[in-house]
């Protein structure tokens, strides 16, 4: 492993950087979901997980996070639409001053809900797609009607005046059709398009042999994305294409999520607080919001401090 170039003896470690604010709170409301995508980031044993947090418990989390400076809030899961209290959660989040993002598969979404959420103050809806054509999409999502439903809901989201991010999880079986994917997003008037190679946690880790694209596939996909970016810029089209490469093809490790416990805080359905999805797989203890305040969790807990600063790094 290449040395990072540190020749400092222990006592001359650079000063520990100040702990940042958790600007981004991801509220994973549930692991329940009507789909079965092979790259799902749900933990493999999600059926075994404890009870979901109640509405009141989530209100407390939101309040504490906002007090600490969190500004962006994502409602996610599993499928957040499964929660019966979603309108209340959205309303409370908006009242607290959060910018609220609903991150959904679109399954279970209706025009009525889109309207109700808008009234409650929801700022943005992100819909995920599995592929650009019906057959592949439905095959991957494990549902016969998924694609048609998502299409209809994407149109409805825009019709109600929301900004919309379309999230396409890319992998070996759809990345070669990236041009069709982008065209679909433009036709649906997406404001942002996330072309994200699936992250290999949970079910995606298990299935990664069947999912990881080849280097050639990725290079081609990135080239095509850049061609579209240039075209959109020239046309003055506000749609922004975001392309995320899998870590497996990077040359060096990156400061994932801007650094451990740096910007991002996620609370899982049973109340476990994590600095990121992947953290769950580590042999590290993480605190639960039922037992501790978010303030304590972020600043003082063992888990969140585990990889902050430099002291945890072994000598090169």
């Amino acid at each position, binding site marked *: 492993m290449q040395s990072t170039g540190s020749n400092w003896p222990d006592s001359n470690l650079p000063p520990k950087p100040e702990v940042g*604010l958790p*600007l*981004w709170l991801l509220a994973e409301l549930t692991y329940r979901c009507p789909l079965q995508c092979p790259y799902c980031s749900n933990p493999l044993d999600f059926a075994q997980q404890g009870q979901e947090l109640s509405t009141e418990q989530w209100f407390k989390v939101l309040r504490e996070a906002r007090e*600490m*400076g969190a*500004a*962006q809030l*994502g409602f996610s899961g599993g499928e957040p639409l499964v929660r019966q209290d979603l309108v209340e959660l959205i309303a409370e989040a908006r009242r607290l*001053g959060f*910018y609220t*993002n609903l991150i959904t598969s679109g399954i279970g979404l209706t025009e009525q809900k889109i309207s109700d959420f808008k009234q409650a103050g929801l*700022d*943005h809806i*992100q819909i995920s797609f599995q592929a650009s054509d019906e057959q592949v999409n439905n095959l991957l999502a494990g549902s016969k009607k998924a694609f048609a439903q998502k299409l209809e809901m994407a149109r409805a989201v825009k019709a109600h*005046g*929301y*900004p*919309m*991010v379309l999230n396409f999880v890319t992998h070996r079986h759809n990345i070669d059709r990236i041009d069709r994917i982008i065209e679909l997003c433009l036709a649906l008037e997406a*404001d*942002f398009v996330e072309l994200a190679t699936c992250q290999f946690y949970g079910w995606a880790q298990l299935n990664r042999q069947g999912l990881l694209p080849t280097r050639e596939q990725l290079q081609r996909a990135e080239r095509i994305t850049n061609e579209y970016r240039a075209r959109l810029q020239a046309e003055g089209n*506000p749609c*922004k294409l975001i392309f995320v490469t899998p870590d497996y093809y990077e040359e060096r490790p990156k400061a994932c999520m801007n650094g451990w416990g740096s910007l991002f805080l996620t609370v899982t359905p049973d109340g476990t607080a994590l600095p990121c999805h992947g953290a769950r797989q580590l042999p590290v203890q993480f605190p639960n919001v039922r037992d501790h305040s978010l303030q304590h969790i972020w600043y003082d807990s063992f888990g969140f401090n585990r990889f902050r600063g430099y002291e945890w790094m072994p000598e090169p």
Partner: protein
Amino acid sequence: MSFDRGMTPKWRPGYRFQYEPAKKGHVLLYPEGMIKLNESAALIGGLIDGQRDVAAIIAELQQQFADVPELGEDIEQFMEVARAEHWIELA
């Protein structure tokens, strides 16, 4: 090409301008993102309401900053950047 001060800026749908106490400043929040605005951008941003045209914004800030001759140009420049970045719509 000269800038038309009769245009009225408004924030793009989904873009919210607000004060963030934790950041001690104004930010622009948009889907999953946040931009921190410097003081002058924040002053201009605070006057964007879909009603005031650029001339009105300049006039109002000129009252506060009478001794800044390039104020009008600075504001035009902000508008051009904001439009190019698609933070605002200018009509």
